[in-house]
């Protein structure tokens, strides 16, 4: 089908809107995720959210809010545990396996919704209805607003935590608040690429951006632009080929990252061996 007719369909317009709202948040939030070395935490949150989403379906509620509820709680717990989580990949991995297992159980009880499972796991941006669109708009506004508010002390606390503490930044509170924003971003990203592939929107564009530039402002902008571009192109390609949108977005974001590695490889020098 020719691309020109793409936007004549309401479901495509919805998909582009939803995708844009999600990509903007994912790109911005993901940037700090990389800086703070929390990529795995973002991944873990989405898995915990899966249990929330399927649990919500079981009780007849909207999967988005179920997902969000679980990721918010997990984010606060992670934030409060703070440093104790560092290096505890096994513990985190076990928790998210448990969550995924619970999700499978919830799905089993609600047997008539197999498509629901696919949508939660792999996203369903082409099936976004008006209600979800409004919810995404609201969540985007809140999360970008909150991120904008804390971005300065967050950057400071990320790069120089002891100095930030001395200068009066509430490092712990900022960390928890940021994780709450991550939880919202994860819930949104899961609507487009699903719970299992949140990484593709939240980590890949930001990681690519940080290989292409060393400046904070450019990196942040590039992260958002890459996420947006990959989402739009992914939607267009999905429309044109009928292949799943999630596949295209993931392919584009991973390709962009690999391409950025090629550029970075030429520029990065090894550290001089003088001081140590």
């Amino acid at each position: 089908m020719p691309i020109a007719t793409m936007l004549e369909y309401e479901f495509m317009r919805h998909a582009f809107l939803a995708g844009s709202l999600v990509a903007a948040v994912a790109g911005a939030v993901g940037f700090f995720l990389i800086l703070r070395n929390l990529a795995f935490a973002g991944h873990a949150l989405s898995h915990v959210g899966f249990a929330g989403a399927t649990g919500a379906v079981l009780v007849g509620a909207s999967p988005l809010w179920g997902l969000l509820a679980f990721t918010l709680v997990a984010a606060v717990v992670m934030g409060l545990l703070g440093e104790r989580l560092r290096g505890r990949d096994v513990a985190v991995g076990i928790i998210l396996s448990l969550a995924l297992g619970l999700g499978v159980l919830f799905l089993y009880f609600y047997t008539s919704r197999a498509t629901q499972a696919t949508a939660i796991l792999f996203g369903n941006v082409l099936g976004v209805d008006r209600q979800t669109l409004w919810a995404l708009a609201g969540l985007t506004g809140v999360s970008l607003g909150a991120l904008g508010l804390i971005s300065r002390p967050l950057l400071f606390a990320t790069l120089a935590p002891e100095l930030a503490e001395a200068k009066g930044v509430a490092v712990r509170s900022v960390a928890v608040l940021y994780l709450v924003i991550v939880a919202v971003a994860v819930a949104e990203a899961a609507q487009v690429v699903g719970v299992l592939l949140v990484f593709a929107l939240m980590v890949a564009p930001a990681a690519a951006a940080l290989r292409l530039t060393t400046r904070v402002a450019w990196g942040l902008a590039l992260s958002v632009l890459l996420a947006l571009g990959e989402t739009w192109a992914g939607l267009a390609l999905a429309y044109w080929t009928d292949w799943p949108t999630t596949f295209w977005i993931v392919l584009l974001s991973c390709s962009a990252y690999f391409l950025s590695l090629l550029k970075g490889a030429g520029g990065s020098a090894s550290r001089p061996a003088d001081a140590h």
Partner: protein
Amino acid sequence: MEAIELERVTLARGERVVLSEVTLAIHRGEFIGVFGPNGAGKTTLLQAILGLLQPVAGGLTVFGAPPLRGNPTAGYLPQQRASVADLRLRGWDFVASAFCGERWGLPVYGRAGRVAVDRAIEIVEAQGLAARALCELSGGELQRLLLAQALLGAPQLLLLDEPLLSLDPHFQRAIITLVKRIGREQGITVLFTAHEVNPLLGAMDRVLYLGQGRAALGTVEEVITGPVLSRLYGSPIDVVQVADRLLVVSGHGAVDADAHRHDA
């Protein structure tokens, strides 16, 4: 007005008393070398001056006022460095993040901010480093950027917590010379903690030696002596002079040889 005054100050970390009833005064513009074994209270003292730790007893004043967390007149170079060394972020952005970093909002610095960051980088002679990524810098080069961060906001007091750690002698000398020059030119009071006395011999005005909850403040000749250090370490210490270097020796060999074993 003294830069820092302690009046029978007791500092504790939880149950453990780190400094007990210490009284001393540090004058404006002085370069003080702060020494002592691990756990003697060097970092604790700096944190108390920064307002991060409340004295259990006694009065501590900084430029005549009680310590205030976030005090803009105090510049700080902390001991524990976060693992920024692996980040592909520009040195300039790293330093700039500390410019009014405690304010809410977006990390945009405006003209005033850019000028201040450029100035700080210029003072520490790190112009060439600012454009490079942190992961490409050596330990000594990263230290310069940390010093630039500490100098943002034109502080009157500079607190440097073990800035020489894991630097080779060449970079140690460079940092000491730099800090000494900055302190002299801008009349900044400097507290510089270290393990080894010798690198700082030419730069220090006075020595502050901590140990066993006690403190000794005075010139090198007054403080770096067998009797004084024996009291502070709680075991027999001898000070031997070899040419213009001082060797602090305990019954178990050179005292500072163990200094670099740090649970950082």
